[in-house]
């Protein structure tokens, strides 16, 4: 019954984590079966990172036109053409999809189309056929969660349906002020929707340094994006023309649509994982720092592994496991060193420890932090964006956290990532005067100030 061939690696799921593992393993000379029930590329490419960022860019374009007079450019904003927005978005996705397919096939990875199930610790079954591997990588990804009593359908959407809307809602409620909720709120506000975010915790983007959360809230207030924090969902009713959400504090909110963005759950049920003894917790696959599950030869990567649910974490874990299997003994991934970007207007971006985390780790008196305001940054003044860069350092030690807010600042996270992961001291960065006038210069100025030698900063 088993296929003749035994692969070096069988991978279940071809999202960010799975396909990265496949690409790297193939480079290292391993034979790979990559099993995918839907499309190679997974959530990120088809219904996550890429399409949402396309919408956000359309939103940025709309806002640019709305504010063009301030830059001396006469123009008028005449509305959003949702079918053209979709064509743009779908065009980007399909070009990248084609590129990825080309890449996968050029590396001689065997792609198996179909839904698989782990039937032995070294075997995945797809449509009755068995694929055996010396190693198995579980990479089945995640799905949009909802809350008890909150059924998806009609005017109640998750991000999947929200991406396929063919109209701009007049009013929308976003349940959840995390990354995905905040990004959709930003898109819709740019498109002209009246948006209200409901968040159960005390702040928007609650995983970020509190200074970023507060600054995002200020920026959203300015953009007239309403939000209620500490506000818990109680129930929903769908009417003919609207949806009404009630919250535990007895208030109700009415809108055309409700987007449920309360997080992503691991897509692991009924895939045979538990049956074969893979240790799980609340649906997640538990691994050690080398991404080994409790079953010998079975690894897990991506959103099914507890931690940050980010595409590039999936890439990094996929590469790690491929190298691990090939015997390269890669260094374990430091989760806090993975960069995090919320691509709303303004961008929120961070890497390393928040000030709170740093104090927990090193002690209250052993941490120093500094905020550099973009008011002193020429390029940000030109873009007319407000915001700041906050650096957190260990006293007399390296920079352990970089936290930023402002339009376009997400692009500076690459530099932040080097600083934190390479354990740079403020002085190391400060000695390299950055290009003038750029936004990345603000990172340099922040480091100068933290090193005790502020240049364009009031000391």
């Amino acid at each position, binding site marked *: 019954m088993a296929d003749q061939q035994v692969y070096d690696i069988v991978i279940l799921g071809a999202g960010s984590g799975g396909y990265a593992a496949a690409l790297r393993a193939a480079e290292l000379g391993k034979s790979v079966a990559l099993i995918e029930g839907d499309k190679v590329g997974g959530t990120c490419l088809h219904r996550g990172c890429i399409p949402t960022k396309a919408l956000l860019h359309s939103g940025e374009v709309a806002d640019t036109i709305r504010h063009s007079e301030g830059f001396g450019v006469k123009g008028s904003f005449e509305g959003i053409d949702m079918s053209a927005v979709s064509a743009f978005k779908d065009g980007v996705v399909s070009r990248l999809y084609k590129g990825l397919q080309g890449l996968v096939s050029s590396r001689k990875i065997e792609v198996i189309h179909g839904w698989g199930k782990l039937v032995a610790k070294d075997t995945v079954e797809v449509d009755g056929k068995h694929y055996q591997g010396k190693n198995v990588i579980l990479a089945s990804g995640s799905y949009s969660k909802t809350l008890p009593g909150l059924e998806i359908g009609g005017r109640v959407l998750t991000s999947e349906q929200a991406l396929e809307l063919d109209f701009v809602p007049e009013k929308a409620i976003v349940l959840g002020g995390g990354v995905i909720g905040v990004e959709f709120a930003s898109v819709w506000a740019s498109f002209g929707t009246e948006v209200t975010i409901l968040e159960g915790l005390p702040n928007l983007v609650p995983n970020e340094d509190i200074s970023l959360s507060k600054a995002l809230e200020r920026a959203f207030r300015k953009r007239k994006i309403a939000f209620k924090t500490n506000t818990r969902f109680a129930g929903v009713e769908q009417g003919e023309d609207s949806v009404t959400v009630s919250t535990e504090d007895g208030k109700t909110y009415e809108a055309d649509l409700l987007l449920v963005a309360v997080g992503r759950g691991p897509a692991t049920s009924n895939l045979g994982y538990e049956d074969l003894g893979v240790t799980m917790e609340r649906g997640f696959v538990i691994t050690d720092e080398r991404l080994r599950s409790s079953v010998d030869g079975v690894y897990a990567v991506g959103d099914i592994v507890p931690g940050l649910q980010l595409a590039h974490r999936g890439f990094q874990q996929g590469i790690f496991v491929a190298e691990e299997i090939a015997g390269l003994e890669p260094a374990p991934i430091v989760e806090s060193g993975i960069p995090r970007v919320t691509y709303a207007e303004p961008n929120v971006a961070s890497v390393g420890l928040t000030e709170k985390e740093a104090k927990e780790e090193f002690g209250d008196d052993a941490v120093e932090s500094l905020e550099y305001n973009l008011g002193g940054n020429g390029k940000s003044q030109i873009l007319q964006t407000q915001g700041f860069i906050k650096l957190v350092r260990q006293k007399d030690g*390296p920079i352990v956290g970089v936290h930023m807010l402002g339009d376009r600042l997400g692009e500076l996270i690459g530099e932040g990532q080097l600083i934190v992961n*390479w*354990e740079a*001291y403020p002085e190391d960065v400060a000695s390299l005067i950055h290009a003038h006038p750029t936004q990345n210069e603000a990172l340099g100025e922040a480091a100068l100030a933290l090193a005790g030698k502020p240049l364009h900063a009031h000391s």
Partner: protein
Amino acid sequence: TPARAEESGGRTAAASASYVTPLVRKLAHSKGVDLSTLEGTGVGGRIRKQDVEAAAQAAEEAKSAPK
């Protein structure tokens, strides 16, 4: 005063020799190499990655030599 210029020239070489990049510092730390014992081969006496690796290897060889 040429004497002063010379003196500061001397200090200068010492100062730049002590400059290491974060990557080299991190590498030295992970390999247990004491940077103050190294003579840099980079521009202006800068300690490079190769210098740390060479020192780490030398230490390794010294350790295994007596056996």
